């Protein structure tokens, strides 16, 4: 017996007495625990019910296992986004998964649908797709009429209290409720429509359930208990409340009427559910019956088939592929072609035949032919570049025979059917969009869809949403969010403790709640977005495999699964990735043709030009993709990259895998002849000879596992894959044991095999396959060639392709100037929309690039075409003439005036602005007469040089009429060493340097070190900061756009770094931070 003051536990529950029965319940002893497993939850939301569900599919699965459930349904709200993740997790934990969804009908009412058979899943997926495509974005609704068309294979439960039947019963409209239930029964059939009873100890539950039971009896319908689960354990209800507040974009106080009354919406033990429905055991028993009926397994029963290829002349896809490849090989190599190439071709064709993938390759070939016929910039990346078949079909652009690339990473001889070939193609930006349009046109939205990605809560977003929900002051939340956004941020707990104003608050419950909620929120999906380039095609309807929805971009549709779910489903994904460097190269070569009449195709560029390598060896690589990072330049200055093979290694070397695997320094030392090339075991020589005994390429992991542990290529590839993913300690230990056992059987001693295993393990996560590095290196070389021989075209193309995610336009423009290329500001009589090359350059210049309108802030895209058209009608005679002909907005013209685009008029900016004010009329005003405005311009002060620099930077993104360094010049003193003189300094010599930050990096592999690339008038300076300096100078290191650094010189060959010892601020406009590129 419980006394009146005895605290109750959190799981406190009671049975479900009716009036008149309550005394019987009390009179009896407490219900005995019923054997676990008699109840199955059939109405359960995961976190993929966005801003509603507060537990992940895995948490739900684990809790269901803990509770002894034999099965569990996940019924997310109008989507199947988490269905595959749930099904896979359930399968891994040996729990039966039931796929379903809670749908919203056009009147706003809910209905729970469960997939009994595969056709039911197809119907549910089509219903959801149809709702997505025909409803307002974000509010998918299903029309009742559609249910009849798609009812087969589905079991329907009447829904939560928002279900049509339940809501009518709750309102006392019993005849309408009966009519509604009869309609559902007629659609789904008596056996497949159940009245859903939910008892969450909410005040209204009892009368509603009584009404529903009476209705079920009257219509002879089954009843079933569910708990409308929104979180796996009671403690998570607070997060659920927060998510509801986030959904309504308000705080919890304001969201009160939308919150659930209590915390009873969790996965309950079977015994508790049985107690709640003690007078209605059939409601519990029916959960098991329904679970038994639901035989659809998403991990097993999808009907996806990749479209095969019809040759049209009776040849099979295999025959057609073989004939096509031989024809293309003869065309490329000549006839007859080498035995080496023929053996390789036959090996690949055999693997493709065994894997039944000929149709896949031919389909891809067909799709890519569209790009090749239109000369769209396209090129393969990844392991597929190692395939000769891919090269011949135009899917890669790199000849694997010429570059000695292995195919094992791409086509695995042990698992030809299981592995789906992974072909990634890079396109220029426009080309990529065109390819998407082409695929959707060819395959239609019924057969093609893009892969989605889930944007997850990170610390900063979790802090903002949880803080707002709790009603914490906005300014404080902003402060914490910004701090958590920092690259140096530790855990939220540590960061709050380190902020004096917050440390004391941790004693208040609301801040403790905040801390816990943020941590719970992190990692949950926040919204669905478009994957960078994955697209799936199917021979059957895509919308029967996975629900699809429209994207914000016209003509593109995404499915509700991310790349992992798509891979788990066995869908074949084509990856069309955007690679603006291809546009840069293509645009540059087009300029070469236009200006010099020289037609250059990338594949004609000599890959052995010493002049190009000399430039690379000087570290003059800014703007050259793959080798322009600080770390890359440091290595380039130490070793001499003298051929394309060196460049391929260089591209792959500066990656987390080789860095963590300790490959970089031995490789450099061995290249410089300072260290002997050695191998941990003689059998590794074949695999590692080309990289001087260290692991640089993924293929080498495979080859080493084969050599040391005697693995087949398939086993070795599995080892590599397993190592590259997060695994449990037990799984990793099992891998190690298998490797060690194989090595022992191969006669390799334990110490050696352990050393090799550890090196492989350190490398395995983030390395490039050689094939991918080769593709990247060749593109990098082509761009380097352009920079060496046609620098004006190079910089013009580079500026036109911005943003490209590396150096800012300001830094690029400065580099161009250091190469004697003028960068000229926008001029309305000379600029086009894009940057262009001008030939009237002066004196020592080697060329001039005129900035295009695209660079001017405030000029809408719509006005570009008007400017292009008007340009063809001749020069503008005056500002008034410009306005009369273009009718741009006042703001746009003001901005053009301020960046000096009317300097040719002889008037300065303020005079021009005054004039504009005198005659400007909005667009809808009467057109002006062709006459000059009257009036006298008063004497106005001209803008200062600094004002012009700041204006240029703010409106064009770079200083055109001066240098950003001019803004800080008066703060510099004689003791500051310019970048050009650093090479002359001795190792260990103290220096003070100053400059604007171009790049700021704190890579995970650097163990807390921070790297700045500063820029002064003469060039770039590398600064290395040890972690011990961060607490004292955190703001300067992390946020300052310009710095004075006191330190000493460190030199390795020609690579010079300044090792920071202390920092001083170099005040400049805060917006200068925009020129900084931050990397992780």
């Amino acid at each position, binding site marked *: 017996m*419980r006394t009146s003051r005895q*605290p109750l536990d959190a799981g*406190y529950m009671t049975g479900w007495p009716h*009036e008149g029965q309550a005394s019987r319940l009390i009179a009896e002893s*407490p219900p005995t625990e019923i054997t676990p497993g008699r109840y199955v939850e059939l109405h359960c939301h995961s976190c993929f019910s966005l801003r509603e569900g507060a537990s992940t599919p895995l948490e739900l699965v684990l809790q269901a296992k803990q509770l002894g459930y034999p099965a569990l349904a996940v019924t997310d709200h109008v989507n199947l986004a988490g269905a595959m993740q749930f099904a896979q997790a359930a399968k891994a934990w040996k729990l039966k998964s039931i796929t379903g969804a809670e749908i919203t009908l056009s009147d706003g009412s809910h209905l729970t649908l469960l997939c009994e058979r595969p056709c039911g899943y197809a119907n549910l997926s089509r219903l959801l797709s149809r709702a997505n495509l025909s409803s307002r974005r974000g509010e998918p609704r299903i029309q009742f009429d559609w249910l009849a068309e798609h009812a087969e294979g589905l079991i329907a439960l009447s829904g939560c209290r928002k279900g049509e039947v339940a809501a009518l019963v709750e309102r006392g409209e019993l005849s309408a409720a009966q009519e509604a239930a009869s309609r559902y029964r007629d659609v789904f059939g008596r056996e497949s429509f159940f009245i859903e009873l939910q008892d969450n100890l909410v005040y209204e539950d009892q009368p509603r359930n009584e009404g529903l039971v009476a209705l079920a009896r009257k219509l002879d319908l089954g009843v079933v208990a569910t708990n409308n689960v929104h979180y796996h354990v009671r403690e998570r209800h607070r997060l659920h409340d927060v998510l509801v507040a986030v959904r309504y974009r308000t705080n919890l106080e304001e969201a009160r009427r939308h919150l659930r009354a*209590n915390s009873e919406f969790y996965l309950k033990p079977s015994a508790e559910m049985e107690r709640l429905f003690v007078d209605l055991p059939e409601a519990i028993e029916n959960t098991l019956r329904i679970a038994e009926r639901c035989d659809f397994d998403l991990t097993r029963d999808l009907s996806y088939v990749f479209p095969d290829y019809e040759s049209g002349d009776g040849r099979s896809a295999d025959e057609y592929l073989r004939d096509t490849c031989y024809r293309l090989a003869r065309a490329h190599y000549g006839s007859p072609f080498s035995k080496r190439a023929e053996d390789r071709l036959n090996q690949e064709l055999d693997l493709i035949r065994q894997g039944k993938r000929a149709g896949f390759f031919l389909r891809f070939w067909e799709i890519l032919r569209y790009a090749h016929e239109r000369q769209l910039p396209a090129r393969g990346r990844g392991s597929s570049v190692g395939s000769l078949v891919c090269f011949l079909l135009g899917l890669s652009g790199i000849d694997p025979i010429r570059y000695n690339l292995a195919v094992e990473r791409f086509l695995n001889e042990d698992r030809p059917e299981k592995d789906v070939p992974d072909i990634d193609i890079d396109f220029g930006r426009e080309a990529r969009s065109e390819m998407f349009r082409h695929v959707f046109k060819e395959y239609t939205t019924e057969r093609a869809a893009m892969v989605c990605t889930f944007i997850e809560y990170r610390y900063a977003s979790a802090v903002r949403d949880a803080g707002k929900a709790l009603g914490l002051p906005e300014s404080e939340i902003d402060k914490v969010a910004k701090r958590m956004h920092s690259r140096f941020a530790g855990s939220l707990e540590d960061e709050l403790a380190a902020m004096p104003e917050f440390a004391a608050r941790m004693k208040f419950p609301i801040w403790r709640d905040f801390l816990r909620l943020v941590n719970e929120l992190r990692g949950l999906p926040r919204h669905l977005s478009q994957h960078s380039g994955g697209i799936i095609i199917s021979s059957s309807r895509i919308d029967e495999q996975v629900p699809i929805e429209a994207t914000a971009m016209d003509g593109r549709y995404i499915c509700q699964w991310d790349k992992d779910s798509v891979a788990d489903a066995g869908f074949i994904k084509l990856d069309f990735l955007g690679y603006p460097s291809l546009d840069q190269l293509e645009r540059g070569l087009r300029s070469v043709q236009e200006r010099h009449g020289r037609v250059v195709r990338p594949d004609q560029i000599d890959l052995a030009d010493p002049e190009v390598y000399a430039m690379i060896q000087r570290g003059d690589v800014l703007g050259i993709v793959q080798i322009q990072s600080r770390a890359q330049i440091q290595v380039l200055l130490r070793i001499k990259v003298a051929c394309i093979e060196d460049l391929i290694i260089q591209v792959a070397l500066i990656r987390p895998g080789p860095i963590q695997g300790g490959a970089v320094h031995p490789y450099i030392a061995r290249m410089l002849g300072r260290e002997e090339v050695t191998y941990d075991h003689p059998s590794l020589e074949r695999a590692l000879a080309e990289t001087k005994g260290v692991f640089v390429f993924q293929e080498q992991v495979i080859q080493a596992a084969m050599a040391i542990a005697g693995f087949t290529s398939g086993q070795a590839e599995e080892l590599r894959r397993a190592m590259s993913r997060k695994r449990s300690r037990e799984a990793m230990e099992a891998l190690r044991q298998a490797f060690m056992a194989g090595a022992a059987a191969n006669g390799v001693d334990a110490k050696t095999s352990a050393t090799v295993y550890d090196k492989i393990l350190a490398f395995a996560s983030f390395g490039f396959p050689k094939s991918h590095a080769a593709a990247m290196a060749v593109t990098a070389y082509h761009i380097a060639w352009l920079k060496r021989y046609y620098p004006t075209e190079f910089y013009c193309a580079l500026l036109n392709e911005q943003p490209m995610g590396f150096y800012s336009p300001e830094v690029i423009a400065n580099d161009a100037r250091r190469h004697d290329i003028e960068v000229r500001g926008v001029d309305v009589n000379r600029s086009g929309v894009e940057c262009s090359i001008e030939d009237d350059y002066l004196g020592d210049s080697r060329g001039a690039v005129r900035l295009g309108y695209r660079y001017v802030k405030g000029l809408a895209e719509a006005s570009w075409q008007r400017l292009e058209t008007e340009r063809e009608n001749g020069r503008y005679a005056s500002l008034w003439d410009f306005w009369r002909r273009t009718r741009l907005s006042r703001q746009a013209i003001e901005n053009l005036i301020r960046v000096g685009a009317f300097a040719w008029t002889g008037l300065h900016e303020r005079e021009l602005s005054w004039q504009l004010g005198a005659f400007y009329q909005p667009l809808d005003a009467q057109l002006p007469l062709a006459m000059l405005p009257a009036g006298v311009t008063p004497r106005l002060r001209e803008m200062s040089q600094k004002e012009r620099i700041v204006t240029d930077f703010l409106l064009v993104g770079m200083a055109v009429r001066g240098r950003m360094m001019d803004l800080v010049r008066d703060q510099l003193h004689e003791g500051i060493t310019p970048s050009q003189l650093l090479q002359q300094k001795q190792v260990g010599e103290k220096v003070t340097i100053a400059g604007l930050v171009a790049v700021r990096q704190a890579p995970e592999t650097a163990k807390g070190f921070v790297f700045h690339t500063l820029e002064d008038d003469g060039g770039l300076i590398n600064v290395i900061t040890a972690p011990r300096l961060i607490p004292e100078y955190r703001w300067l290191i992390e946020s300052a756009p310009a710095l004075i650094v006191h330190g000493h010189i460190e030199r390795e060959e020609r690579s010079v770094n300044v090792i920071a010892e202390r920092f001083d601020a170099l005040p400049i406009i805060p917006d200068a931070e925009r020129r900084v590129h931050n990397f992780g």
Partner: protein
Amino acid sequence: MVGNTRGAPDPRRIRRLKSPRALEVEAGADGVPLRLRLGGAWHDVSLVRHPWRIDQNWWRGEPMSRMYYRIAPTDGPPLTVYCDLASGEWFRQEY
């Protein structure tokens, strides 16, 4: 006709709930009240309605978790009581 819900409420029509009063209750292991003390005497009680629960205001730093029961003493009118789940204390809620 629906009144203007956007305007200021008429203070004459707003009524505070009566403050809950502490109560002595004996409950079963499942938490359901068995007896309560009214007017100095203990009375057996029976449930007259399914219980209900609220969990609110946790974000105010004063979490309110209560299990409510509508019960009737033998020969007495029904009344609503609740158990504060944090403290285990019982209260009578009058409306």
